[in-house]
Each structure stands twice: as C-alpha cells, then as structure tokens.
C-alpha cells in the first residue's frame, strides 16, 4: 500500500508538471500581460504608447479633461446643453458617417464621467483612435468639438447625463447600447440593427436582411472590416483580456480601428455579464449539477474501495 502511494505520488507529480507546462506557463509566455488602469480614464496609456509628436497634444488634452472634471456641473443648465446631443442621439437614428449614434438613455450608468467629458471635448482623442482621423478624415462625432467649446457647459452636460440618464440597465441593454451598433451577436439574435424581429412574410424578412447588409457595408467602410460577432467571444478570449481590451483597445491590438467605449465599472460588469450569457450559457447548469455528479463518484469510489478490500483481504 505504501509503495502504491509512492508510485501514485510520482505519477501525480509528473501529471501536474505537465499541466503546468502546457497551460499556465505556456499561456503566460504566449500572450503579453496587459494591466488595466482600473477603469480610470486619465489617458496614461494613451500618452505612454503614442508616437513622439503626439505626446504633447495628448498630455494637454487629458490635463484639460482633469480640469473640467474638477468643475461643479449644473444639472439644470446641462439639460439645455444636452438638447445639442439629441439632434443625432435619438431613437431610430440612421447611420451617420459609418456608425449609428447610440441612444443615450443609460449613458450615465454605462459610461465613466471623465470619459464622457473627454468624448465631448474631442471624440477621436477620447476613443484613442485619433491615428485614424488624419488629413481630411474627421470623426463622425467630430463636429461636437465646435458645438460645445465651453468647459463649464461640458461639465454641465456630463453632470446632467450622470444624474438623469443613469437608470437601472440590464446586461442586454448595456451590450446593445455600448457594443451592439458595430458587433452582431447571432447567439443573442442581434445584428448591428439591434434584435432581429420575427417576420410573418419571407419578403419582409429579406427586406430586413438587406437593411442589415447595408448597415454592415457602412460600418465596413468606416472600420475597415466588419467587427467580429461577439456571440462566443467570452470563450475565445480570457475575461481579463476582454476587460483590458474594452478599456483600451490599443493596448492589446495596436492600431485597431475599435474605439475605446469608456465603460464605467457598472457598465463593464453588465457588458461582461451579457457576453458570458451568450458565450457560456451552460455555466449556471454546470454549477448546479457539478457538485452532485462529484458526490456520486466520491460515494462510488468509497463503495468500490470497500468492495475491493473485502475481496483482497485474504489474498496476502
């Protein structure tokens, strides 16, 4: 018996070494580890990893954001300023310059305050995609720079959004509003136009599909390619990768066209919950069934051990 335990220890040690080598160790070597910034949008990584000629401009930009964030915003005054936004950000908005403006019903709950300030001040800088908008290309939301120039007004509008557009948001709403205009999720039955309705007639369905294709063409022209379907991205990338990638896409995929979305802690939590729901839907069932199956086999093993002992007792 003692000898068997020794043999078992040797087999177990080699098996664990094998596992360590091909899983944790290999993955630590294959993927560069990226630390997030704790969902604090202060431009630290933007400045650190930009080209030399842009460092100064980025530093100044994020310093300005800090200054505005320190101002006390007036919610009532912000409501008037917010009217500027609703010209484009409305329910049923059409694609503008490559992307459909999102509705802002939950913007206060989903997005970080500093990020919203940065976004109004200069969308391309806030999203860390300014490398895309050189020459005559301008960001689809770029006109806001000229429309809202006063620091106090920006602070007011953001204060209004954070106070009045911050209702409870479901994981699905969080996903649709912050990711769903570019990324389809076929397992969640949604395209870039939102949830796909049911159709009674084939020709209505086809007409809708054409609308989806047209939207996708516009997004493709704007982004360079159709952003990937996110149905099962939760299993294709690690949780940590997704969080740091969403916080700052440039950190994991340098030069990508994907904008920073500026999710707050609450927003990130909800979006990740939805990605897990469509990407790994069996998790609740696994957690419920797992302990029972293991219990069964533990009892099975104990009974088998007793049976074995009863048969082997007199053999030696």
């Amino acid at each position: 018996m003692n000898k068997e335990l020794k043999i078992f220890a040797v087999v177990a040690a080699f098996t664990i070494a094998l596992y360590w080598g091909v899983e944790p160790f290999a993955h630590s070597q294959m993927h560069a580890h990226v630390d997030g910034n704790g969902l604090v949008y202060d431009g630290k990584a933007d400045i650190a990893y930009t080209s030399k000629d842009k460092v100064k401009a980025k530093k100044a930009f994020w310093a300005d954001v800090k200054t505005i964030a320190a101002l006390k915003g007036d919610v009532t005054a912000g409501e008037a300023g917010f009217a500027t936004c609703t010209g484009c950000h409305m329910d049923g908005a059409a694609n503008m310059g490559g992307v459909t403006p999102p509705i802002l019903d939950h913007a206060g709950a989903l997005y970080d305050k500093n990020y919203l300030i940065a976004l109004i001040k200069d969308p391309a800088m806030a999203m860390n995609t300014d490398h895309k908008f050189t020459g005559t290309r301008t960001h689809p939301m770029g006109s806001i720079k000229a429309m809202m120039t006063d620091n106090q007004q920006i602070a007011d509008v953001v204060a209004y959004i954070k106070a009045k557009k911050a209702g409870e948001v479901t994981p699905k709403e969080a996903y649709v509003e912050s990711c769903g205009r570019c990324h389809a999720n076929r397992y969640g039955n949604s395209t870039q136009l939102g949830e796909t309705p049911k159709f009674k007639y084939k020709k209505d369905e086809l007409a809708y599909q054409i609308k989806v294709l047209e939207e996708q063409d516009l997004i493709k022209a704007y982004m360079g390619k159709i952003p990937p379907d996110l149905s099962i991205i939760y299993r294709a990338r690690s949780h940590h990768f997704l969080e740091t990638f969403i916080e700052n896409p440039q950190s994991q995929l340098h030069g990508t066209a994907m904008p920073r979305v500026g999710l707050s802690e609450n927003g990130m939590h909800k979006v990740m919950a939805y990605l897990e729901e469509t990407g790994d839907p069996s998790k609740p069932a696994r957690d419920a069934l797992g302990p029972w199956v293991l219990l069964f086999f533990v009892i099975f093993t104990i009974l088998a051990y007793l049976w074995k002992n009863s048969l082997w007792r007199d053999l030696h």
Partner: protein
Amino acid sequence: MAKFEKASSIGEWLDQRIAVETLKKVMQTEYWIPKDINFLWAMGMVLAATFGILIVSGIFLLMYYQPHVDHAFDSVNYLIMTEVGYGWLWRHIHGVGASLVFLIIYIHMFTGIYYGSYKRGRELIWISGMLLFVLFSAEAFSGYMLPWGQMSYWAGMVITNLFSGGSLEAYGLVEWIRGDYVPAQAFLTRFFMLHVFLMPLMIIGAIVFHFGTLRIPHVNNQEGEDFDYAEAAELYKAGKVKESKVIPFSPVFLSKDVFVMGVYFVLFFYLVFYNFSFAMDPVNFDPANGLSTPAHIYPEWYFLWSYEILRPFSKDIGLILFAISQVIFFTLPFLDRSPNVAPASRRGLFKYWFWILLVDCLILTFMGKLPPTDPTFASIGLVSAVIFFALWIALPIITKLEKKL
C-alpha cells in the same frame, strides 16, 4: 448437430447453445492475472472505460452535429451548447475525455516501458498498443477538425501540408488528402467520416487484438517474475489463495480496477465541470477564417512533443525526424537487447535511460507550445530533440551491456 435437451433455466439454455459457462471461465473467473501488481495495472481498464465514454458522448453529439462548413461551428457552439438538453455536458465530457485518454495512454505506455512489459513473448502486446496510439492520434486529429474553429482550420492546414514532403513538394498529394486546394467542405466531410466511422471501427478492432495478444504471454507483474501460471491457478482453485501468485480477472482484479476508475472519474468530472479549458482551446472558439492566421498555431498537448521534434530543424530534416519519432516507439522491443524482464530501477543504465526519456518528452512538450521566436526556448527545444534521438541510438548499446539478472 449437438444434442439439446430441455433447459431448466435461461442460463442453461444459453450454455447449451453458446457455452456461456466456458466463456465466463475463459474471460473472467479463470482468466488469471498476477497478484503482484499496483494501480498502474488498472490503466488498461481505465482506458477501455474512457473509450466507452467517448463513444457514448460521441453518439449523442453526432445526433446534432452538422458537418457543413457554414453550420459546423454553430451546431457545436450554439445548438449543442444551448438548445440540446445537457448538450453542453456531453460536449464537455467528449472534449475532456479526448484529452484525458491520452494522459492515460502515456501513463500506460511508460508503465510498460518501466516494467519491461514489451520483452520476448510480449512484443505483440506492445506493437498492438502502439498501433492503438497511432489510431487514437488519427481519431483525435480528425475530431479536432469538426468544430471548424480557427485552430481546427489551421491545424488541418499545417498537418495536411506535412504530406507535401518538404522539398519533394508533393502538393498533388496534399490536394488529394484535402479534396481541395485548402481545407474546405470536402475536407470537413471526409474528416467527419474518418472520425465517426472508420477510425472508431479500426480502434475497436485494434482493442480486440490488443486484448488477444495478452492472453498467451500473460500480463507482466511488478517484479517481472516468470512463474508457472497453471500451477498458480491450481493453488488458487484449491483455496490456497495466499500461496497462489495469481488472482482471477473477475471479480478480484476487476474490483481494484473499479476502485481506480472511481478515483479517475472524480478527477474526470471535476475537469468536466470546473476546469475544461485545457481541453478546449480558446482559439478554436473563433470561427474558421482562411484569411486570418492565428498568432500561434499549436496542436493539443498530447502532440506537442513530436511537434517540437519537427520545429527546430530545417524543413526536410525536421520532417524526416518527425516521421521517425512517430514510429520509433514501435521498435522498442527490438532495440532493447537485454533479456531482463524487470523494473527499470533494477536494470543498470536502463534506469537512467527511462527517466531521461520521460523528462525529455516532458520538456519537448513544454517547448512545443511556446512561441518558437524566443531563442532560449528554441535552443532548449533543439537540445531536447537531439537528446531524444541520442537516447534511441544509445538504447541497443546500453541494453547489450546490461548484466543478466
């Protein structure tokens, strides 16, 4: 024709016709197994059980899987995972089982090497076992194509490319294997056929053959002791079980197998429920895309050691050494020139040969998954691959020098 009388029980009725009593004796109660064994002797039954689980889970998956390039990915990742009741469970069992079956195969193999269970009289046990290893490898590879994810596609691309034979540039052969210029519908359908029909059929045949080869030379024991089985069996049947060196396969040997299986199944289902990603690579959750090569392409862990033998050398030399590494284990009974049947610990230089081989295979496995662009890892891989072949060249020499026990 034989004489048939009215039977008084179903057992007797069957016995008259197909000799179930004799069968039971031959296959179970008087199939003698040495008593001096440890839990490693249960790996054969653990493998049989795992294969059974793979067959059953595979049948359930097969009812919903769609072998079409446009539907395969979603039929696995959506239909089976979401809409089929417990489909996720069958899939995880199948995926984890496919990985664990190789862990047990390797334990089984190295047990055989350690205790010298491939020596004179037992060569066919070893060779049929190696044949099973090759068949399981083909089964694993063909199954890996079916979810049609990025790793399926690119592993299919890389492995079928090997058949171009390096500088021979036999691309015609590669196209013939693929049925197309690149992995596509024809490729997926034929690997589907291989995975669900031809390979399992051949595996079942090989398992029967493997069991058959055990019968005459008998199973080896912990000390490699050669004794008279008939005499030992008589002792056992006479009730002198303490003195006898054998036990019957059923129920005595089997009771221990079942206990070992219990321990194994606790681990198995822990992995199924809580830690399955080692067996289901994240890269394969991106749908196959011929226009986007993943940053790192690597096989499942059980092929990494031979993959690492392929990698560090130039194209042609790498291919030749890779091909040799695939078959070299078959030759073990003939390269080992020592007549001693004993555990490696009692066999002089062979003791070191065994442990160096085991550690070397482990290091090759580690290096096989790491990016080859890192010069340190690439050098370690090269040295380990050279050691691997040096060991096989040294084997006949050191075993020839071995003192007879």
